[in-house]
């Protein structure tokens, strides 16, 4: 069998599933250490205020309290940040949102720590606050950080929009808004920090990005990077969410461990998590589009403002992704887009599956339907006639040199959904009913990996041991998406051994060099390529050792089924283990480190154009809904989702990503909203912040499209994020089809429209 096909493209079961179903997988909260202390946080009491005094003496005197720390105790820098160093694990001068910490406590139990927190008195001088990013950018707005409230401004410029509008038959202007949403990983954040005898600070935790956390902790603790070791515990979901907030927890627990000389565990309750952790950005979007009567889009002028909240975090990158993709996957000759990110005194916002795309996809896909409505064209036909094709030029001026499959995705999903039939039959059937059916769609294109945001490179180590067992390590992390399994499949395939031989090592900053973050759906295409190279590196050594024995040259050998054999004469073979022994006896080392760099890309901020990403993926989701116009309840009956992944290395895992992303998209469309009133979070637990249950998601059909890409291992591209960016638009369009009501605000609380007020949220629990 071809070595590659023995594992690649197969739905092998997850390599880490067994410990997870047995309940023995170790998540950060499951770590208990001798002498371990428990930490709690004293939070800000105003969304924007100057700290005038902190009195911790009562807390310190409480029995069982081991340490109370404030910003004065920080040994290193007070701030950290991916782009702008403005985030403060412990506030010193001011508090900027209600999740800020003013003091932290370590005690013998959580209850004592909690009690101590309540004994801390903080004096404040309350400052004027701002909660709307558009207000924050006006002159005279309260300044949250020195230098003004603008975090980022990005633009794209293509052609001449005025000329495009002049040539248009109609011009449509629309505004859309999206809400703040919470990642809602079921595992709240947790870290355990302790010092090794050699003075190295270890922070084990529910980390998504071990290297960014290491930078923050090292800076804050005044320790060299080499003396900070970040280890990922089994991760209970992240979706972009366990990065900067884990740095914050790591810094706090590290400091308390330093002050007490004992291990310190800091666990966020769900309330802490929702109040403190960063969210998906709310966006305010304005679109102006000029179209010909036949549906040709002539020009788009777009302006949007993102609420960055109290800290910059990933706002500069999130808004950049929005600026690149703002027009959607359409041919538009004239484009002018401006995206602004602003500080406010709201909870800060950052990376969240989609990363600046669910917002714009909701807007431009709602807009496409509005255009179709104005022109009396079927929404599908309008999209097909404007959709990007092979060789087209994007809004940023990039030529698409790969298979552009947006039309394919549109066709596959709409055929499966019986689009044409339902578009015409539903309105007829709805007339006499109070439960009305509708069907809508949304499609997108999405740049893969980091893009011109930054350096994109990553490494992997593959080692074969004397007994033939293999381990892999990379700096990229498993967070449920199946990375360990897919990387193990790649190594097993290239070495020609069963996947059971492969062991994926714990992700630990001390084992391998910084390979960047596990974000932007980059793991398979970047990390997978590195693992493949490293595995091939080891295999070449085995071939060299085997060649002599087999009387063949190394280039003529192949590896499969635990054998190394002559490709044209497969009976001439030696066992994998024999080759390992030969190589080791011959003095070789059977380990290989490989580094993979992304193909070149570029971006000009000044001109607002560039080849933003080295490749793109395409997808489409069709949603069928039923709207009860008496109660306003929206049921999502069925979602059909097609995604081009290049090549599915593990189809079951890809399907799992699609279903999970669709469910998240359903929540975004109709259920979820972090409600903030003057900076105060009103939805602090999962009884008020509603995510979809098994009763809220309807039927789902996934269609995997495979157009192999030259940039990815075996042609693979990515999957995680595009799945979560489409349901907002598809469901909004389906609701319009069902009811004739165009709702331009997410989430779609139809009750507002139907009843004129918001329904009281009901308890959903069944038991």
């Amino acid at each position: 069998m071809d070595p590659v096909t023995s594992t690649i493209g197969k739905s092998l079961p997850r390599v880490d599933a067994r410990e997870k179903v047995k309940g023995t997988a170790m998540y950060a909260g499951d770590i208990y250490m001798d002498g371990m202390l428990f930490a709690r946080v004293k939070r800000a009491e105003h969304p924007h205020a100057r700290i005038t005094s902190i009195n911790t003496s009562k807390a310190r005197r409480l029995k069982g309290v081991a340490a109370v720390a404030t910003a004065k105790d920080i040994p290193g820098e007070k701030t950290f940040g991916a782009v702008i160093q403005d985030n403060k694990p412990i506030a010193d001068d001011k508090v900027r949102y209600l999740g800020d910490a003013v003091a932290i406590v370590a005690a013998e139990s959580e209850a004592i720590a909690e009690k101590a927190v309540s004994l801390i008195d903080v004096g404040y001088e309350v400052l004027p606050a701002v909660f709307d990013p558009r207000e924050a950018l006006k002159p005279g707005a309260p300044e949250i950080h020195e230098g003004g409230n603008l975090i980022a401004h990005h633009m794209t410029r293509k052609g001449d929009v005025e000329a495009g509008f002049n040539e248009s038959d109609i011009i449509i202007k629309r505004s859309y808004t999206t809400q703040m949403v919470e990642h809602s990983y079921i595992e709240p954040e947790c870290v355990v920090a302790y010092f090794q005898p050699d003075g190295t600070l270890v922070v084990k935790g529910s980390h998504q990005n071990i290297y960014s956390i290491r930078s923050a902790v090292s800076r804050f603790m005044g320790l060299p990077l080499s003396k900070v070791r970040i280890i990922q515990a089994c991760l209970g979901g992240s979706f972009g969410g366990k990065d900067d907030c884990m740095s914050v927890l790591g810094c706090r627990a590290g400091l308390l461990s330093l002050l007490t000389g004992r291990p310190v565990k800091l666990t966020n309750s769900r309330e802490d998590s929702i109040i403190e952790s960063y969210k998906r950005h709310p966006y305010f979007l304005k679109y102006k589009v000029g179209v010909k009567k036949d549906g040709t889009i002539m020009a788009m002028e777009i302006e949007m403002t993102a609420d960055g909240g109290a800290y910059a975090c990933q706002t500069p990158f999130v808004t950049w992704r929005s600026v690149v993709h703002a027009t959607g996957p359409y041919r538009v000759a004239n484009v002018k887009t401006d995206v602004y990110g602003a500080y406010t005194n709201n909870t800060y916002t950052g990376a969240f599956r989609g990363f600046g795309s669910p917002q714009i996809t909701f807007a431009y896909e709602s807009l496409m339907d509005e255009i179709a409505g104005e022109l009396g064209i079927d929404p599908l036909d309008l999209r097909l006639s404007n959709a990007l094709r092979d060789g087209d030029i994007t809004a940023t001026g990039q030529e698409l040199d790969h298979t552009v499959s947006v039309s394919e995705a549109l066709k596959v999903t709409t055929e499966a959904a019986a689009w044409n039939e339902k578009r015409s039959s539903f309105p007829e059937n709805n007339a006499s009913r109070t439960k009305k059916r509708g069907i809508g769609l949304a499609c997108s294109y999405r740049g893969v990996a980091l893009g011109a945001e930054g350096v994109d490179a990553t490494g992997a180590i593959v080692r074969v041991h004397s007994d033939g067992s293999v381990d892999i390590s990379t700096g990229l992390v498993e967070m449920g998406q199946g990375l360990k399994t897919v990387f193990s499949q790649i190594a097993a395939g290239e070495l020609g051994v069963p996947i059971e031989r492969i062991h994926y090592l714990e992700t630990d900053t001390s084992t391998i060099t910084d390979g960047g973050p596990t974000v932007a759906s980059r793991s398979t295409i970047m990390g997978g390529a590195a693992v493949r190279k490293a595995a091939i590196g080891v295999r070449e050594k085995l071939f060299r050792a085997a060649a002599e024995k087999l009387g063949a040259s190394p280039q003529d050998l192949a590896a499969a089924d635990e054998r190394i054999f002559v490709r044209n004469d497969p009976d001439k073979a030696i066992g994998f283990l024999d080759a390992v022994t030969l190589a080791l006896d011959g003095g070789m080392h059977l380990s290989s480190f490989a580094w993979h760099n992304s193909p070149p890309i570029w971006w000009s901020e000044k001109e607002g154009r560039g080849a933003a990403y080295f490749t793109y993926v395409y997808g489409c989701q069709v949603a069928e809904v039923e709207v009860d116009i008496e109660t306003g309840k929206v049921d999502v009956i069925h979602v059909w989702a097609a995604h081009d992944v290049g090549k599915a290395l593990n189809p079951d895992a890809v399907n799992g990503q699609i279903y999970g992303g669709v469910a998240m998209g359903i929540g975004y469309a109709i259920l979820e909203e972090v409600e903030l009133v003057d900076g105060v979070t009103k939805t602090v637990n999962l009884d008020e912040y509603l995510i979809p249950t098994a009763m809220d998601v309807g039927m789902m059909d996934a269609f995997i499209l495979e157009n192999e890409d030259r940039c990815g291992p075996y042609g693979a591209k990515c999957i995680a994020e595009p799945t979560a960016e489409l349901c907002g638009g598809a469901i909004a369009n389906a609701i319009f089809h069902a009811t004739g009501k165009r709702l331009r605000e997410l989430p779609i609380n139809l009750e507002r429209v139907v009843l004129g007020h918001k329904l009281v949220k009901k308890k959903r629990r069944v038991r």
Partner: protein
Amino acid sequence: MKKIKLTITVNGKKHTLRIAPNLRLLDLLRDELRLTGTKEGCGIGECGACTVILDGKAVNSCLVLAGRCDGSEIITIEGLARDGALHPLQQSFIDHGAVQCGFCTPGMILSAKALLDENQRPTEKDIRVAIAGNLCRCTGYKQIVQAIQTVADREKTP
């Protein structure tokens, strides 16, 4: 606080302990017995990550005072595998790709077990209702429902 005495059988093993009267069953299992397969996701009975089987019924152990469980029998996720062999539900979750991050998985499997113990012929709707109190943010539930349905179908055919 005065401690109270408690006798409780967990996964077939009898424990006699002295506990604080305000201790939650969840903390008893995790902190005292170190059965950390039972997870905490919300602490208010919404997420189901803390689900265990208490005298045959699936309950949220974050809402149950340990002191109320005197004389009770409890099954946690650690109690499902027998002599190293996985319970059919555990195996089915693996086979159907119903596990991603795994944080909801123990609670999900126990809710499924409680359902199948009571109802050998559940419909898809029955399954969805039975796990509606178990939130999963990763999977979209489809493969979980399939995993449970498969075990139910297998058990009902003689």
